[in-house]
Protein backbone atom coordinates (compact mmCIF):
# COMPACT_ATOMS: atom_id res chain seq x y z
CA UNK A 1 0.00 0.00 0.00
CA UNK A 2 1.69 3.12 -1.07
CA UNK A 3 1.65 5.62 1.71
CA UNK A 4 2.21 8.84 -0.11
CA UNK A 5 -1.24 10.21 0.62
CA UNK A 6 -0.91 9.92 4.40
CA UNK A 7 -3.97 11.99 5.26
CA UNK A 8 -3.21 12.23 8.93
CA UNK A 9 0.39 13.25 8.85
CA UNK A 10 0.71 15.90 11.51
CA UNK A 11 4.17 17.31 10.97
CA UNK A 12 4.38 20.60 9.19
CA UNK A 13 5.37 20.14 5.61
CA UNK A 14 8.86 21.47 5.06
CA UNK A 15 9.00 23.97 2.23
CA UNK A 16 5.24 23.97 1.94
CA UNK A 17 3.07 27.02 2.30
CA UNK A 18 5.57 28.97 4.37
CA UNK A 19 3.26 31.62 5.79
CA UNK A 20 0.77 29.07 6.96
CA UNK A 21 3.49 26.77 8.20
CA UNK A 22 4.94 29.59 10.22
CA UNK A 23 1.59 30.48 11.72
CA UNK A 24 1.06 26.86 12.55
CA UNK A 25 4.41 26.55 14.23
CA UNK A 26 3.85 29.71 16.20
CA UNK A 27 0.46 28.58 17.40
CA UNK A 28 1.91 25.22 18.41
CA UNK A 29 4.74 26.97 20.23
CA UNK A 30 2.24 29.17 22.05
CA UNK A 31 0.18 26.19 23.12
CA UNK A 32 3.33 24.45 24.25
CA UNK A 33 4.65 27.38 26.27
CA UNK A 34 1.24 27.79 27.84
CA UNK A 35 1.27 24.20 29.00
CA UNK A 36 4.82 24.72 30.33
CA UNK A 37 3.61 27.76 32.21
CA UNK A 38 0.84 25.77 33.83
CA UNK A 39 3.30 23.07 34.82
CA UNK A 40 5.62 25.61 36.41
CA UNK A 41 2.71 27.14 38.28
CA UNK A 42 1.76 23.72 39.66
CA UNK A 43 5.29 23.19 40.95
CA UNK A 44 5.43 26.62 42.56
CA UNK A 45 2.07 26.12 44.25
CA UNK A 46 3.12 22.75 45.60
CA UNK A 47 6.14 24.40 47.23
CA UNK A 48 4.32 27.52 48.32
CA UNK A 49 1.54 25.88 50.33
CA UNK A 50 3.77 24.09 52.87
CA UNK A 51 5.99 27.13 53.19
CA UNK A 52 2.96 29.25 54.01
CA UNK A 53 1.82 26.77 56.65
CA UNK A 54 5.28 26.67 58.20
CA UNK A 55 5.37 30.45 58.36
CA UNK A 56 1.96 30.49 60.06
CA UNK A 57 3.18 27.92 62.53
CA UNK A 58 6.26 29.97 63.29
CA UNK A 59 4.29 33.14 63.85
CA UNK A 60 1.67 31.39 65.96
CA UNK A 61 4.31 29.80 68.20
CA UNK A 62 6.24 33.01 68.63
CA UNK A 63 3.14 35.05 69.46
CA UNK A 64 2.12 32.49 72.02
CA UNK A 65 -1.10 31.43 70.26
CA UNK A 66 0.01 27.82 70.54
CA UNK A 67 2.12 26.13 73.19
CA UNK A 68 5.74 26.59 72.18
CA UNK A 69 6.84 23.57 74.17
CA UNK A 70 4.57 21.21 72.29
CA UNK A 71 4.58 22.91 68.93
CA UNK A 72 8.23 23.77 68.51
CA UNK A 73 8.54 26.58 65.95
CA UNK A 74 10.06 25.49 62.61
CA UNK A 75 13.21 27.58 63.06
CA UNK A 76 14.00 25.81 66.32
CA UNK A 77 13.35 22.46 64.68
CA UNK A 78 15.84 23.46 62.00
CA UNK A 79 18.40 24.43 64.59
CA UNK A 80 17.85 21.14 66.40
CA UNK A 81 18.24 19.29 63.10
CA UNK A 82 21.51 21.02 62.34
CA UNK A 83 22.78 20.15 65.82
CA UNK A 84 21.92 16.51 65.33
CA UNK A 85 23.63 16.40 61.98
CA UNK A 86 26.85 17.87 63.29
CA UNK A 87 26.87 15.68 66.38
CA UNK A 88 26.49 12.60 64.21
CA UNK A 89 23.29 11.59 65.98
CA UNK A 90 21.34 12.05 62.78
CA UNK A 91 23.44 9.68 60.74
CA UNK A 92 23.53 7.15 63.59
CA UNK A 93 19.76 6.88 63.36
CA UNK A 94 19.25 7.57 59.70
CA UNK A 95 21.55 4.86 58.41
CA UNK A 96 19.95 1.85 60.10
CA UNK A 97 16.45 2.98 59.15
CA UNK A 98 17.37 3.49 55.50
CA UNK A 99 19.16 0.15 55.34
CA UNK A 100 16.28 -1.75 56.93
CA UNK A 101 13.81 -0.04 54.68
CA UNK A 102 15.76 -0.50 51.44
CA UNK A 103 16.84 -4.07 52.03
CA UNK A 104 13.37 -5.06 53.17
CA UNK A 105 11.77 -3.19 50.31
CA UNK A 106 13.97 -4.72 47.63
CA UNK A 107 13.70 -8.25 49.00
CA UNK A 108 9.96 -7.97 49.47
CA UNK A 109 9.25 -6.42 46.11
CA UNK A 110 11.45 -8.81 44.12
CA UNK A 111 9.82 -11.77 45.82
CA UNK A 112 6.37 -10.24 45.45
CA UNK A 113 6.82 -9.51 41.76
CA UNK A 114 8.12 -13.01 41.07
CA UNK A 115 5.30 -14.58 43.04
CA UNK A 116 2.71 -12.42 41.28
CA UNK A 117 4.10 -13.23 37.85
CA UNK A 118 4.25 -16.95 38.55
CA UNK A 119 0.70 -16.89 39.83
CA UNK A 120 -0.34 -14.91 36.78
CA UNK A 121 1.24 -17.38 34.39
CA UNK A 122 0.33 -20.62 36.10
CA UNK A 123 -3.18 -21.45 37.01
CA UNK A 124 -1.97 -24.22 39.31
CA UNK A 125 0.20 -21.88 41.34
CA UNK A 126 -2.58 -19.33 41.44
CA UNK A 127 -5.05 -21.86 42.76
CA UNK A 128 -2.57 -23.19 45.30
CA UNK A 129 -1.41 -19.85 46.71
CA UNK A 130 -4.03 -17.26 45.84
CA UNK A 131 -6.60 -17.72 48.60
CA UNK A 132 -3.92 -18.18 51.25
CA UNK A 133 -2.11 -15.00 50.23
CA UNK A 134 -5.34 -13.07 50.19
CA UNK A 135 -6.09 -14.20 53.72
CA UNK A 136 -2.58 -13.36 54.91
CA UNK A 137 -2.74 -9.97 53.24
CA UNK A 138 -5.50 -8.93 55.59
CA UNK A 139 -3.34 -9.70 58.63
CA UNK A 140 -1.65 -6.54 59.92
CA UNK A 141 2.00 -7.22 59.24
CA UNK A 142 3.14 -5.47 62.38
CA UNK A 143 1.18 -8.06 64.36
CA UNK A 144 3.63 -10.78 63.42
CA UNK A 145 6.60 -8.82 64.74
CA UNK A 146 6.45 -10.56 68.13
CA UNK A 147 6.59 -13.89 66.37
CA UNK A 148 9.58 -12.81 64.32
CA UNK A 149 11.29 -11.54 67.47
CA UNK A 150 10.63 -14.89 69.08
CA UNK A 151 12.22 -16.69 66.18
CA UNK A 152 15.14 -14.41 65.33
CA UNK A 153 15.74 -12.56 68.57
CA UNK A 154 16.52 -8.88 68.81
CA UNK A 155 18.58 -8.82 65.61
CA UNK A 156 18.20 -6.96 62.34
CA UNK A 157 16.41 -9.88 60.73
CA UNK A 158 12.94 -9.39 62.20
CA UNK A 159 13.03 -5.68 61.33
CA UNK A 160 14.01 -6.22 57.72
CA UNK A 161 11.61 -9.14 57.43
CA UNK A 162 8.69 -7.09 58.71
CA UNK A 163 9.23 -4.58 55.96
CA UNK A 164 9.81 -7.28 53.35
CA UNK A 165 6.65 -9.17 54.29
CA UNK A 166 4.38 -6.15 54.08
CA UNK A 167 5.93 -5.12 50.76
CA UNK A 168 5.73 -8.66 49.43
CA UNK A 169 1.97 -8.95 49.71
CA UNK A 170 1.29 -5.60 48.14
CA UNK A 171 3.47 -6.44 45.14
CA UNK A 172 2.22 -9.96 44.78
CA UNK A 173 -1.36 -8.74 44.61
CA UNK A 174 -0.65 -5.86 42.24
CA UNK A 175 1.54 -7.92 39.93
CA UNK A 176 -1.00 -10.71 39.73
CA UNK A 177 -3.75 -8.21 39.03
CA UNK A 178 -1.55 -6.69 36.35
CA UNK A 179 -1.10 -10.00 34.55
CA UNK A 180 -4.71 -11.06 34.91
CA UNK A 181 -6.15 -7.81 33.59
CA UNK A 182 -4.17 -7.89 30.35
CA UNK A 183 -6.66 -7.45 27.56
CA UNK A 184 -7.90 -10.75 26.16
CA UNK A 185 -7.52 -9.33 22.64
CA UNK A 186 -3.88 -8.57 23.28
CA UNK A 187 -3.29 -12.12 24.46
CA UNK A 188 -5.06 -13.48 21.43
CA UNK A 189 -2.90 -11.35 19.14
CA UNK A 190 0.17 -12.66 20.92
CA UNK A 191 -1.07 -16.21 20.48
CA UNK A 192 -1.86 -15.65 16.82
CA UNK A 193 1.72 -14.53 16.22
CA UNK A 194 2.98 -17.48 18.18
CA UNK A 195 4.50 -15.73 21.10
CA UNK A 196 4.99 -18.52 23.60
CA UNK A 197 7.04 -19.35 26.65
CA UNK A 198 9.77 -16.90 27.46
CA UNK A 199 8.91 -14.56 24.62
CA UNK A 200 5.26 -14.38 25.65
CA UNK A 201 6.45 -13.53 29.11
CA UNK A 202 9.07 -11.02 28.03
CA UNK A 203 7.16 -9.19 25.30
CA UNK A 204 3.58 -9.44 26.46
CA UNK A 205 2.93 -10.48 30.05
CA UNK A 206 5.70 -8.47 31.70
CA UNK A 207 5.10 -5.19 29.86
CA UNK A 208 1.37 -5.70 30.32
CA UNK A 209 1.78 -6.04 34.08
CA UNK A 210 4.37 -3.31 34.56
CA UNK A 211 2.04 -0.35 35.11
CA UNK A 212 0.28 -2.29 37.82
CA UNK A 213 3.62 -3.34 39.33
CA UNK A 214 4.62 0.29 39.63
CA UNK A 215 1.36 1.16 41.31
CA UNK A 216 2.18 -1.60 43.78
CA UNK A 217 5.70 -0.26 44.33
CA UNK A 218 4.34 3.17 45.18
CA UNK A 219 1.82 1.84 47.64
CA UNK A 220 4.47 -0.43 49.13
CA UNK A 221 6.90 2.47 49.60
CA UNK A 222 4.47 4.21 51.94
CA UNK A 223 3.66 0.99 53.70
CA UNK A 224 7.36 0.12 54.11
CA UNK A 225 8.09 3.43 55.80
CA UNK A 226 5.21 2.93 58.22
CA UNK A 227 6.33 -0.58 59.11
CA UNK A 228 9.99 0.27 59.60
CA UNK A 229 9.12 3.18 61.88
CA UNK A 230 6.66 1.14 63.90
CA UNK A 231 9.14 -1.70 64.30
CA UNK A 232 11.76 0.71 65.55
CA UNK A 233 9.34 2.12 68.09
CA UNK A 234 9.23 -1.13 69.96
CA UNK A 235 12.09 -3.36 68.99
CA UNK A 236 15.11 -1.22 68.38
CA UNK A 237 17.47 1.21 70.01
CA UNK A 238 18.67 2.70 66.77
CA UNK A 239 16.84 4.27 63.89
CA UNK A 240 14.49 7.17 63.34
CA UNK A 241 11.54 5.31 64.80
CA UNK A 242 13.54 4.78 67.95
CA UNK A 243 14.52 8.47 67.88
CA UNK A 244 10.91 9.58 67.70
CA UNK A 245 9.76 7.19 70.41
CA UNK A 246 12.68 8.11 72.60
CA UNK A 247 11.93 11.83 72.22
CA UNK A 248 8.50 11.22 73.62
CA UNK A 249 9.84 9.44 76.64
CA UNK A 250 12.47 12.12 77.29
CA UNK A 251 10.10 14.94 76.34
CA UNK A 252 12.23 16.36 73.53
CA UNK A 253 9.63 17.64 71.07
CA UNK A 254 12.16 19.41 68.82
CA UNK A 255 14.03 16.16 68.32
CA UNK A 256 10.77 14.35 67.68
CA UNK A 257 9.85 16.81 64.96
CA UNK A 258 13.23 16.34 63.33
CA UNK A 259 12.67 12.59 63.36
CA UNK A 260 9.19 12.94 61.87
CA UNK A 261 10.40 15.22 59.13
CA UNK A 262 13.30 13.00 58.16
CA UNK A 263 11.04 9.94 58.03
CA UNK A 264 8.63 11.69 55.71
CA UNK A 265 11.49 12.87 53.50
CA UNK A 266 12.68 9.28 53.20
CA UNK A 267 9.20 8.21 52.18
CA UNK A 268 8.93 11.00 49.64
CA UNK A 269 12.35 10.25 48.16
CA UNK A 270 11.56 6.57 47.80
CA UNK A 271 8.24 7.33 46.12
CA UNK A 272 9.93 9.89 43.88
CA UNK A 273 12.59 7.41 42.84
CA UNK A 274 9.88 4.93 41.90
CA UNK A 275 8.06 7.53 39.83
CA UNK A 276 11.28 8.37 37.98
CA UNK A 277 11.99 4.70 37.38
CA UNK A 278 8.49 4.27 36.02
CA UNK A 279 8.98 7.15 33.61
CA UNK A 280 12.17 5.56 32.36
CA UNK A 281 10.71 2.08 32.01
CA UNK A 282 7.13 2.78 30.90
CA UNK A 283 7.37 5.33 28.08
CA UNK A 284 4.13 4.14 26.52
CA UNK A 285 2.08 5.45 29.40
CA UNK A 286 3.48 8.92 29.45
CA UNK A 287 0.75 11.43 28.85
CA UNK A 288 2.88 13.57 26.60
CA UNK A 289 2.55 12.87 22.94
CA UNK A 290 4.92 13.24 20.04
CA UNK A 291 8.22 14.89 20.76
CA UNK A 292 8.18 18.53 19.89
CA UNK A 293 10.49 19.79 17.26
CA UNK A 294 13.33 21.77 18.76
CA UNK A 295 13.50 24.68 16.38
CA UNK A 296 10.13 26.31 16.97
Amino acid at each position, binding site marked *: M*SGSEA*PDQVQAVPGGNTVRTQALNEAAARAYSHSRLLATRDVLLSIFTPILLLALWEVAARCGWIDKKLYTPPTQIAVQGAKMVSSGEMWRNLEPTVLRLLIGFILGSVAGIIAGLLMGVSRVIRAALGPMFTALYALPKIAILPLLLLIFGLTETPKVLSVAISVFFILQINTLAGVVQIDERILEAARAYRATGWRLFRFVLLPGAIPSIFTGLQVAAGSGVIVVTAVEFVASNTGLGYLIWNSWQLFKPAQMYVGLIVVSIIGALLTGAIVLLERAIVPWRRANTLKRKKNT
Partner: protein
Amino acid sequence: MSLAVIAPSGPPAFAVEGLSKMFSGRTGDVLALDDVTLELNEGSFTCIVGPSGCGKSTLLRILGGLETATLGTVTSRLRSVNSGLGNVRSTPETDTSTPKTDTSTPKTDTSTPKTDTSTPRTDTSARVAGSVPASAFVFQEHGVFPWFTVLDNVSFGIRMAGVGKTQRDKIARDWISRIGLDGFETAYPHQLSGGMRQRIAIARAFATGSPCLLMDEPLGALDAQTRMLMQEQLLRVWEADRKTVVLVTHQIEEALLLGDVVVIMSARPGRVKEIISVPFGRPRPADLEGTPEFAQLRQHIWNALRDEVRASMALS
Protein backbone atom coordinates in the same frame (compact mmCIF):
# COMPACT_ATOMS: atom_id res chain seq x y z
CA MET B 1 -25.00 -28.36 3.42
CA SER B 2 -23.94 -28.33 -0.14
CA LEU B 3 -20.28 -28.40 -0.79
CA ALA B 4 -19.32 -25.43 -2.83
CA VAL B 5 -16.18 -25.28 -4.83
CA ILE B 6 -15.02 -21.80 -5.22
CA ALA B 7 -13.47 -19.84 -8.03
CA PRO B 8 -10.76 -19.11 -8.92
CA SER B 9 -9.81 -22.70 -9.37
CA GLY B 10 -6.78 -23.87 -7.58
CA PRO B 11 -6.05 -26.31 -4.83
CA PRO B 12 -8.05 -25.61 -1.70
CA ALA B 13 -6.12 -23.76 0.97
CA PHE B 14 -8.71 -24.70 3.53
CA ALA B 15 -11.21 -27.49 3.43
CA VAL B 16 -13.80 -27.13 6.13
CA GLU B 17 -16.04 -30.10 6.61
CA GLY B 18 -19.05 -30.46 8.86
CA LEU B 19 -17.60 -27.92 11.24
CA SER B 20 -19.56 -27.23 14.40
CA LYS B 21 -18.55 -25.22 17.38
CA MET B 22 -20.26 -25.33 20.72
CA PHE B 23 -19.33 -23.00 23.55
CA SER B 24 -20.23 -24.49 26.90
CA GLY B 25 -20.45 -22.32 29.92
CA ARG B 26 -22.20 -21.93 33.22
CA THR B 27 -24.99 -20.00 31.59
CA GLY B 28 -25.64 -22.73 29.10
CA ASP B 29 -24.40 -23.89 25.75
CA VAL B 30 -24.10 -21.71 22.70
CA LEU B 31 -23.97 -23.37 19.35
CA ALA B 32 -21.94 -20.83 17.38
CA LEU B 33 -21.37 -22.82 14.20
CA ASP B 34 -23.45 -25.65 12.87
CA ASP B 35 -22.26 -28.01 10.17
CA VAL B 36 -20.27 -25.54 8.11
CA THR B 37 -18.73 -26.94 4.96
CA LEU B 38 -16.54 -24.77 2.79
CA GLU B 39 -13.59 -24.92 0.50
CA LEU B 40 -11.35 -21.94 0.14
CA ASN B 41 -8.97 -22.03 -2.77
CA GLU B 42 -5.43 -20.95 -2.58
CA GLY B 43 -5.03 -17.40 -3.76
CA SER B 44 -8.71 -16.62 -3.43
CA PHE B 45 -10.21 -13.66 -1.67
CA THR B 46 -13.20 -14.76 0.36
CA CYS B 47 -15.52 -12.41 2.18
CA ILE B 48 -17.82 -13.60 4.91
CA VAL B 49 -20.96 -11.68 5.74
CA GLY B 50 -23.63 -12.53 8.25
CA PRO B 51 -25.61 -11.12 11.14
CA SER B 52 -23.83 -10.17 14.33
CA GLY B 53 -23.12 -13.11 16.58
CA CYS B 54 -23.49 -15.74 13.87
CA GLY B 55 -20.01 -17.11 14.39
CA LYS B 56 -17.93 -15.33 11.77
CA SER B 57 -15.12 -14.52 14.16
CA THR B 58 -15.30 -18.01 15.56
CA LEU B 59 -14.96 -19.53 12.11
CA LEU B 60 -11.97 -17.36 11.38
CA ARG B 61 -10.34 -18.27 14.66
CA ILE B 62 -10.79 -21.94 13.96
CA LEU B 63 -9.25 -21.50 10.51
CA GLY B 64 -6.26 -19.85 12.13
CA GLY B 65 -5.91 -22.46 14.82
CA LEU B 66 -6.78 -20.14 17.68
CA GLU B 67 -9.85 -22.14 18.53
CA THR B 68 -10.60 -25.82 18.18
CA ALA B 69 -13.59 -27.26 16.43
CA THR B 70 -16.11 -29.18 18.47
CA LEU B 71 -17.07 -31.37 15.54
CA GLY B 72 -15.85 -31.64 11.98
CA THR B 73 -12.49 -30.98 10.44
CA VAL B 74 -10.48 -28.17 9.01
CA THR B 75 -7.81 -29.25 6.60
CA SER B 76 -5.20 -26.76 5.65
CA ARG B 77 -2.90 -27.09 2.72
CA LEU B 78 -0.94 -24.03 3.68
CA ARG B 79 2.45 -24.52 5.09
CA SER B 80 4.41 -22.14 7.14
CA VAL B 81 6.78 -20.17 4.99
CA ASN B 82 10.34 -21.01 5.66
CA SER B 83 12.24 -19.66 2.74
CA GLY B 84 14.87 -17.15 3.49
CA LEU B 85 16.19 -16.99 -0.06
CA GLY B 86 19.74 -17.86 0.79
CA ASN B 87 20.23 -16.41 4.18
CA VAL B 88 17.85 -18.58 6.10
CA ARG B 89 18.25 -17.88 9.75
CA SER B 90 15.46 -19.85 11.24
CA THR B 91 15.87 -19.79 14.94
CA PRO B 92 15.84 -23.03 16.84
CA GLU B 93 12.84 -22.11 18.95
CA THR B 94 10.42 -21.68 16.10
CA ASP B 95 9.45 -25.13 15.08
CA THR B 96 8.64 -25.49 11.47
CA SER B 97 7.32 -28.95 11.59
CA THR B 98 4.12 -28.79 13.57
CA PRO B 99 0.88 -28.49 11.70
CA LYS B 100 -0.32 -24.94 11.85
CA THR B 101 -4.01 -25.55 12.06
CA ASP B 102 -5.02 -27.58 15.05
CA THR B 103 -7.07 -29.96 13.06
CA SER B 104 -4.94 -30.10 9.99
CA THR B 105 -4.32 -33.44 8.47
CA PRO B 106 -0.81 -34.54 7.64
CA LYS B 107 0.43 -32.47 4.82
CA THR B 108 0.67 -34.36 1.65
CA ASP B 109 3.39 -32.20 0.37
CA THR B 110 1.67 -31.45 -2.86
CA SER B 111 3.77 -30.24 -5.68
CA THR B 112 1.43 -27.37 -6.31
CA PRO B 113 3.62 -24.40 -6.82
CA LYS B 114 2.99 -21.71 -4.26
CA THR B 115 0.78 -18.99 -5.56
CA ASP B 116 3.72 -16.74 -5.20
CA THR B 117 3.62 -15.81 -8.82
CA SER B 118 6.58 -13.62 -8.23
CA THR B 119 5.50 -10.21 -9.16
CA PRO B 120 8.94 -8.78 -8.61
CA ARG B 121 8.20 -6.23 -5.99
CA THR B 122 10.32 -5.42 -3.04
CA ASP B 123 11.40 -8.63 -1.45
CA THR B 124 9.42 -8.01 1.67
CA SER B 125 6.51 -10.33 1.89
CA ALA B 126 6.57 -14.07 1.92
CA ARG B 127 10.33 -13.93 1.71
CA VAL B 128 11.28 -13.75 5.26
CA ALA B 129 14.15 -15.55 6.82
CA GLY B 130 12.84 -17.69 9.59
CA SER B 131 9.56 -19.44 9.92
CA VAL B 132 6.37 -17.49 9.75
CA PRO B 133 2.99 -18.97 10.59
CA ALA B 134 0.81 -20.15 7.73
CA SER B 135 -1.79 -17.56 8.49
CA ALA B 136 -1.67 -14.09 9.93
CA PHE B 137 -4.50 -12.38 11.74
CA VAL B 138 -6.02 -8.96 11.72
CA PHE B 139 -8.43 -8.82 14.60
CA GLN B 140 -11.80 -7.20 14.91
CA GLU B 141 -10.45 -5.05 17.71
CA HIS B 142 -6.92 -4.81 16.44
CA GLY B 143 -5.02 -6.11 19.52
CA VAL B 144 -2.11 -3.76 19.00
CA PHE B 145 0.42 -3.85 21.84
CA PRO B 146 0.31 -0.57 23.76
CA TRP B 147 3.85 -1.02 25.06
CA PHE B 148 5.48 -1.29 21.65
CA THR B 149 6.22 1.49 19.23
CA VAL B 150 4.64 1.37 15.79
CA LEU B 151 7.83 -0.18 14.43
CA ASP B 152 7.95 -2.88 17.09
CA ASN B 153 4.27 -3.58 16.68
CA VAL B 154 4.53 -4.05 12.94
CA SER B 155 7.59 -6.26 13.28
CA PHE B 156 6.15 -8.34 16.11
CA GLY B 157 5.05 -11.23 13.91
CA ILE B 158 8.38 -11.62 12.16
CA ARG B 159 10.20 -11.13 15.43
CA MET B 160 8.32 -14.08 16.87
CA ALA B 161 9.21 -15.94 13.69
CA GLY B 162 12.85 -15.40 14.52
CA VAL B 163 13.81 -12.82 11.94
CA GLY B 164 16.89 -10.78 12.81
CA LYS B 165 16.64 -7.14 13.76
CA THR B 166 18.07 -5.57 10.61
CA GLN B 167 15.84 -7.45 8.25
CA ARG B 168 12.90 -7.05 10.57
CA ASP B 169 13.22 -3.29 10.68
CA LYS B 170 13.58 -3.07 6.95
CA ILE B 171 10.41 -5.04 6.34
CA ALA B 172 8.49 -3.18 9.02
CA ARG B 173 9.53 0.23 7.70
CA ASP B 174 8.43 -0.75 4.25
CA TRP B 175 5.00 -1.73 5.51
CA ILE B 176 4.68 1.31 7.71
CA SER B 177 5.22 3.44 4.67
CA ARG B 178 2.77 1.42 2.62
CA ILE B 179 -0.01 2.00 5.12
CA GLY B 180 0.85 5.67 5.23
CA LEU B 181 2.33 5.95 8.69
CA ASP B 182 5.78 7.28 7.75
CA GLY B 183 7.22 9.36 10.52
CA PHE B 184 5.33 7.50 13.22
CA GLU B 185 7.79 4.64 13.61
CA THR B 186 8.69 5.58 17.16
CA ALA B 187 5.22 6.66 18.26
CA TYR B 188 3.26 4.58 20.72
CA PRO B 189 -0.27 3.41 19.91
CA HIS B 190 -1.88 5.73 22.45
CA GLN B 191 -0.53 8.64 20.43
CA LEU B 192 -2.40 7.51 17.34
CA SER B 193 -5.98 7.55 16.20
CA GLY B 194 -8.14 4.46 16.18
CA GLY B 195 -7.87 4.15 12.43
CA MET B 196 -4.11 4.43 12.55
CA ARG B 197 -3.95 1.68 15.14
CA GLN B 198 -6.07 -0.50 12.94
CA ARG B 199 -3.64 0.07 10.10
CA ILE B 200 -0.79 -1.04 12.34
CA ALA B 201 -2.60 -4.31 12.86
CA ILE B 202 -3.00 -4.71 9.11
CA ALA B 203 0.67 -3.96 8.49
CA ARG B 204 1.67 -6.38 11.22
CA ALA B 205 -0.22 -9.16 9.50
CA PHE B 206 1.09 -8.37 6.02
CA ALA B 207 4.66 -8.02 7.24
CA THR B 208 4.75 -11.61 8.39
CA GLY B 209 4.61 -12.68 4.78
CA SER B 210 2.24 -15.49 5.70
CA PRO B 211 0.60 -17.05 2.68
CA CYS B 212 -2.81 -16.57 4.23
CA LEU B 213 -4.44 -13.60 5.87
CA LEU B 214 -7.42 -13.93 8.15
CA MET B 215 -9.02 -10.57 8.68
CA ASP B 216 -11.86 -9.90 11.06
CA GLU B 217 -13.48 -6.61 10.10
CA PRO B 218 -10.08 -5.04 9.58
CA LEU B 219 -11.52 -1.80 8.30
CA GLY B 220 -14.37 -1.64 10.77
CA ALA B 221 -12.78 1.07 12.91
CA LEU B 222 -12.02 3.36 10.02
CA ASP B 223 -14.00 6.34 8.85
CA ALA B 224 -15.70 6.04 5.47
CA GLN B 225 -13.04 7.89 3.48
CA THR B 226 -10.03 6.15 5.00
CA ARG B 227 -11.91 2.93 4.64
CA MET B 228 -12.30 3.42 0.91
CA LEU B 229 -8.65 4.26 0.59
CA MET B 230 -7.66 1.22 2.58
CA GLN B 231 -9.91 -0.98 0.48
CA GLU B 232 -8.06 0.18 -2.60
CA GLN B 233 -4.71 -0.38 -0.97
CA LEU B 234 -5.77 -3.78 0.28
CA LEU B 235 -6.78 -4.72 -3.23
CA ARG B 236 -3.51 -3.47 -4.69
CA VAL B 237 -1.46 -5.43 -2.24
CA TRP B 238 -3.54 -8.51 -2.68
CA GLU B 239 -3.46 -8.35 -6.47
CA ALA B 240 0.32 -8.18 -6.33
CA ASP B 241 0.64 -11.08 -3.92
CA ARG B 242 -2.44 -13.22 -4.38
CA LYS B 243 -2.37 -14.50 -0.90
CA THR B 244 -5.28 -16.50 0.36
CA VAL B 245 -7.48 -14.01 2.17
CA VAL B 246 -10.51 -14.55 4.31
CA LEU B 247 -12.15 -11.31 5.31
CA VAL B 248 -15.11 -10.88 7.60
CA THR B 249 -17.10 -7.75 6.99
CA HIS B 250 -20.51 -6.37 7.75
CA GLN B 251 -20.51 -4.19 4.66
CA ILE B 252 -22.02 -5.85 1.62
CA GLU B 253 -20.35 -3.32 -0.67
CA GLU B 254 -16.97 -4.09 0.80
CA ALA B 255 -17.50 -7.80 0.28
CA LEU B 256 -18.40 -7.25 -3.37
CA LEU B 257 -15.58 -4.81 -4.00
CA LEU B 258 -12.89 -7.00 -2.56
CA GLY B 259 -13.97 -10.60 -2.81
CA ASP B 260 -13.90 -13.35 -5.38
CA VAL B 261 -16.40 -15.13 -3.27
CA VAL B 262 -18.97 -13.98 -0.76
CA VAL B 263 -20.10 -16.43 1.88
CA ILE B 264 -23.42 -15.53 3.46
CA MET B 265 -23.97 -16.99 6.86
CA SER B 266 -27.23 -17.55 8.64
CA ALA B 267 -28.21 -16.29 12.07
CA ARG B 268 -26.88 -18.25 14.99
CA PRO B 269 -26.16 -21.11 14.88
CA GLY B 270 -24.05 -20.06 11.93
CA ARG B 271 -24.52 -22.09 8.81
CA VAL B 272 -23.46 -21.33 5.29
CA LYS B 273 -26.58 -19.93 3.74
CA GLU B 274 -25.29 -19.12 0.32
CA ILE B 275 -22.04 -18.85 -1.54
CA ILE B 276 -21.80 -16.27 -4.26
CA SER B 277 -19.17 -16.12 -6.91
CA VAL B 278 -18.41 -12.50 -7.62
CA PRO B 279 -18.36 -12.05 -11.40
CA PHE B 280 -16.41 -8.81 -11.58
CA GLY B 281 -12.98 -8.95 -13.17
CA ARG B 282 -9.75 -7.70 -11.76
CA PRO B 283 -8.44 -5.17 -11.32
CA ARG B 284 -11.82 -3.95 -10.19
CA PRO B 285 -12.85 -0.84 -12.09
CA ALA B 286 -13.14 2.34 -10.08
CA ASP B 287 -16.78 2.90 -11.02
CA LEU B 288 -17.81 -0.64 -10.14
CA GLU B 289 -20.17 0.46 -7.41
CA GLY B 290 -22.21 2.48 -9.89
CA THR B 291 -22.93 -0.38 -12.24
CA PRO B 292 -26.34 -2.07 -12.32
CA GLU B 293 -24.74 -5.51 -11.92
CA PHE B 294 -23.23 -4.38 -8.66
CA ALA B 295 -26.53 -2.97 -7.42
CA GLN B 296 -28.30 -6.15 -8.38
CA LEU B 297 -25.85 -8.37 -6.56
CA ARG B 298 -25.93 -6.14 -3.53
CA GLN B 299 -29.70 -6.34 -3.45
CA HIS B 300 -29.52 -10.09 -3.77
CA ILE B 301 -27.18 -10.40 -0.81
CA TRP B 302 -29.20 -8.00 1.26
CA ASN B 303 -32.36 -10.00 0.57
CA ALA B 304 -30.60 -13.11 1.73
CA LEU B 305 -29.28 -11.38 4.82
CA ARG B 306 -32.37 -9.50 5.87
CA ASP B 307 -34.24 -12.45 7.28
CA GLU B 308 -31.13 -13.66 9.03
CA VAL B 309 -30.50 -10.32 10.64
CA ARG B 310 -34.11 -10.27 11.80
CA ALA B 311 -33.77 -13.76 13.17
CA SER B 312 -30.61 -12.83 15.03
CA MET B 313 -32.27 -9.76 16.51
CA ALA B 314 -35.14 -11.91 17.72
CA LEU B 315 -32.66 -14.32 19.26
CA SER B 316 -30.99 -11.78 21.48
